[in-house]
C-alpha cells in the first residue's frame, strides 16, 4: 500500500513537469523574423553593425486578402537597430519591440555591400554560431545597403521574406539567371581553399510606374575572393556561370541566325563535366563540356523545314552559349574569384602540386586557360513543326 502511494504520488509529480520548461517561448509572445539584413554603417564617427529584421504580424497575416486591401496596414514591420556587434544589435532590438525576438524562421539573410567588403567573417561567424539560424537560410547580397532593400514592398506575397524566398526557389527552376545559395554552401565555399563563394544580388527597383513603391528583383551575382567581395556578374554572365556550374534547371536563349530570322531555344536538361589538365610547365587548362537538350519554343521567320536548319540553329546556339561561359569565366578571373572550383579540381587531381601552389593560387587562377564546348540539342519543336510565316508552303 505504502509503495503504491509513493508510486502514484511520484507519477503525479512527474505530470507537473509536462506543463513547460525553462526555455519555453509562447507563440503569441514571439516576434517572428523571416528576413534579416546586415549592414555596417558609420554613425556619429563610430562604425556600427546595423541589423534590420522583417518581423511578421501574425494576426494581420491571417486576414483574407479582401479585408487586407481595405485596410492599408502592412503584415510585417521592419525593425532596425545598431550595435558594436551583431549580438549587441540584436539585444538593442529587444528594447524596441514588446515581444521575444525569434530568429528560427529566418528564411533570407541579406548582406549589405559594406559587410561583404570587410566584415564577412564576423557576420558569418555570428550566423553559424547562433543556434536559432538554420543552415538552410538563403544568402543574398545587395549593391547598396540591406536596410534599403528591405524597405521595398512585396509584389505578390504578403510578406517580404516569403517574396524573396519565392523568387529564389521558383526562379531557379524556370530561368538560369536566378540562383540561390544556402548559408551552409556559402560559408563552406568561403572556407574551402580552391573554391570561392558567390551569392545572388538583390535589387529594389520600381517595376510599376503607377504604384509609388519599389519591388524586389534578383539581378546577377556577387563574386567573392576568399572572404572579400571581388566583383559582380551581370545577367548574361550569370547565365553563363550557372550553365557551367551545372545548376541550370531550365533556361532560354534567343539567337539571330544569319539574316534569316531568330529562334528562341528552351533547354530543360543540362549536364556539365569540368576537368583540368596540367601540362609539363604546370600550366592549367580547364575543359568545360556542357550538354543541353531542349526544344524550339519560338521561331521568328527562321525556317525550320529540314534537318539542316536545325543543325545550323544548333551551331549558332552553341557559339552563343560558349561565348556566355567564356565571358563569365573571364569576369570571374578578373575578380580573382574561383567560383567554379578549379582549384579544388587541381587538388583532386594532383594533391602534391596543389600543396605547392596553394599559396599563390589566386595569382595562378588568373592565368588558367579554358576550353569550352557546348553541345545543345534541339529534340523537339513544341506543338508546331513549321515556322508560322503567313503563307502556306507545301
Amino acid at each position, binding site marked *: 500500500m505504502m509503495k503504491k502511494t509513493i508510486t502514484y504520488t511520484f507519477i503525479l509529480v512527474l505530470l507537473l513537469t509536462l506543463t513547460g*520548461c*525553462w*526555455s519555453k517561448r509562447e507563440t503569441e509572445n514571439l516576434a517572428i523574423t523571416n528576413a534579416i539584413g546586415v549592414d555596417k554603417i558609420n554613425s556619429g564617427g563610430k562604425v556600427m553593425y546595423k541589423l534590420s529584421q522583417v518581423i511578421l504580424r501574425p494576426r494581420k497575416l491571417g486576414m483574407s486578402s479582401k479585408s487586407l486591401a481595405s485596410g492599408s496596414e502592412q503584415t510585417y514591420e521592419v525593425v532596425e537597430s545598431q550595435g558594436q556587434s551583431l549580438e549587441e544589435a540584436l539585444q538593442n532590438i529587444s528594447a524596441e519591440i514588446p515581444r521575444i525576438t525569434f530568429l528560427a524562421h529566418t528564411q533570407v539573410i541579406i548582406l549589405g555591400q559594406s559587410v561583404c567588403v570587410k566584415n564577412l567573417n564576423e557576420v558569418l561567424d555570428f550566423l*553559424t554560431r547562433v*543556434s536559432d539560424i*538554420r*543552415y*538552410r537560410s538563403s544568402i543574398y547580397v545587395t549593391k547598396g545597403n540591406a536596410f534599403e532593400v528591405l524597405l521595398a514592398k512585396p509584389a505578390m506575397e504578403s510578406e517580404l521574406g516569403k517574396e524573396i524566398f519565392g523568387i529564389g*526557389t521558383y526562379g531557379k527552376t524556370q530561368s538560369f539567371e536566378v540562383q540561390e545559395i544556402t548559408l*551552409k554552401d556559402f*560559408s*563552406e565555399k568561403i*572556407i*574551402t581553399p580552391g573554391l570561392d563563394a558567390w551569392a545572388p544580388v538583390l535589387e529594389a527597383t520600381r517595376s510599376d510606374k503607377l504604384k509609388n513603391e519599389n519591388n524586389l528583383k534578383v539581378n546577377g551575382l556577387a563574386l567573392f575572393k576568399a572572404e572579400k567581395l571581388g566583383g559582380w556578374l551581370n545577367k548574361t554572365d550569370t547565365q553563363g556561370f550557372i550553365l557551367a556550374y551545372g545548376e541550370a534547371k531550365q533556361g532560354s536563349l534567343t539567337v539571330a541566325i544569319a539574316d534569316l530570322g531568330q529562334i528562341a531555344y528552351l533547354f530543360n536538361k543540362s549536364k556539365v563535366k569540368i576537368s583540368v589538365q596540367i601540362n609539363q610547365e604546370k600550366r592549367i587548362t580547364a575543359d568545360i563540356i556542357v550538354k543541353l537538350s531542349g526544344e524550339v519554343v519560338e521561331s521568328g521567320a527562321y525556317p525550320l523545314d529540314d534537318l539542316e536548319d536545325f543543325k545550323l540553329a544548333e551551331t549558332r546556339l552553341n557559339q552563343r552559349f560558349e561565348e556566355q561561359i567564356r565571358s563569365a569565366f573571364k569576369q570571374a578571373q578578373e575578380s580573382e574569384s574561383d567560383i567554379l572550383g578549379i582549384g*579544388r579540381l587541381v*587538388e*583532386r587531381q594532383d*594533391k602534391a602540386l596543389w600543396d605547392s601552389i596553394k599559396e599563390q593560387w589566386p595569382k595562378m587562377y588568373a592565368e588558367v586557360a579554358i576550353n569550352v564546348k557546348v553541345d545543345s540539342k534541339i529534340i523537339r519543336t513544341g506543338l508546331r513543326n513549321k515556322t508560322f510565316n503567313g503563307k502556306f508552303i507545301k
Partner: protein
Amino acid sequence: MLEEGRINGRQLFFIMFWTIMATAILNLPMLITRYAPRDGWLSAVVFIPTSVLIVWIASKLGAMFPKQTLVEYSDLVLGPWLGKFVSALLILWVFQAGSIVYQEVVGFFAVSILPDTPLVVLVILVSLAPAYAIYHGLEVIGRSSDFLFFIILGFFTLIYLLLIPEFDYTELLPVFGDGIGNILRGSLTTAVYGGELILVLFFYPYIKDNQKVGKILVSTIVASGIGGILTMAAYTMVFGLECNFLTLPFYHMSRYASIGRVVERIDPFFMISNFLGSYLKLSVFTYVIVLSLAQLFRMKNYRKLIIPVILALNIVGFYSFGSLMQVIDFTDKIWPFYSLPIQIGIPLLLIIVAKFRGLGYRERK
C-alpha cells in the same frame, strides 16, 4: 549474489552498440576532423582493427574466468592487495569516463535545445532513467535495449536517408589527402570509444552463454565501425570543410535535412533518439561502477549506492570541467593517452599473470 538477472548475447550487442555510438555521434566527429577533415571516414575505418584488438584481449580474459567478475578474480590473480588496487584503478577509470559522459550528454541538451534550463534539472532528467534501470538490475537494461535499439536506429536512419540528396561525394576527394599520420591520430580517440567495451568484464558472469562474448563484441565493433564510416562520410559529404567547425555535426545534419521543403526541422527526432541512446550508455557506465564498488567492499546489495554514485559522477564532472571546451580538449589531448594503456594493459597483465600461475578456466581439448 548481487545480480540475479541475466542478459543474452543479442541484448549485449544492442547495449554495447549504443554505448559506443550514443556519444560518439555527439562530439567525436569534431575531434577526428581536427586532424583529418576530408578523410574522417578513414579514421573510422582504422577504428575497426584497433578496437577489435582491444576487445579481443578483453574477451580472452573474460573467457578465462566465466563465473566471476573482474573485481572478483583480480584478487585471485594478483593477491588481495594488488588485486584490490587494480580493481580500484579500473573503477576510477570507469568513474572518470562516466563523469565525462554525463557532462557531454547534459552539455548537449544545454547547448542545443534547453539553454535556459538550470543544469541541476537537466542532470536530474538525464539521470532518472538510468537510476531506475539500475535499481532493477542488469536484466532491465538488457530488456529495454531490446526495443530501444530499433527505435533509435530507426530515427537515425530516417535522418540519414533524408540527407542523401545533399550528399556530394566530391567532398571526399582526394582520398588520403590529409596524410596517413593525421588519419591515425584522428583514429586514436575513436579507439578509446571502442575500448569502452572492456566494461563487459565487470558483468561478464551475468551474460548467458558467455563463451561467445568475444564474437559478439567483435561484431559490435564492426557494426559501430560501419556506422561511424557512414556518418563520418556523411558529415564531410554534406558540410565539406565546414564540418571542421561544427560542435555537434549530427545535430546540424538533422537540422539541415529537408525533402522538398516539406519534411524539415526533424531535429527533435535526433534529440529523442540521442536521449534514448545516452540512457543506455549512462546505464551501463553507472551500473558497472555501482556493481563493482559493491563487490569491492563486499556489500550485500548495491542499490544503496545508486544515488550517491550518480551524484558523485555529476559533481566530479561538473567541477573537473568548467566548460564544454574543456571536456573536448581533455578527450582530445589527454584522455586517449592514459585510457589506452588501461584498456589494453590491465587485461593483458591479468592474462599473463593468470597463465603464469595456472589459474583460470580452459576449454577441454
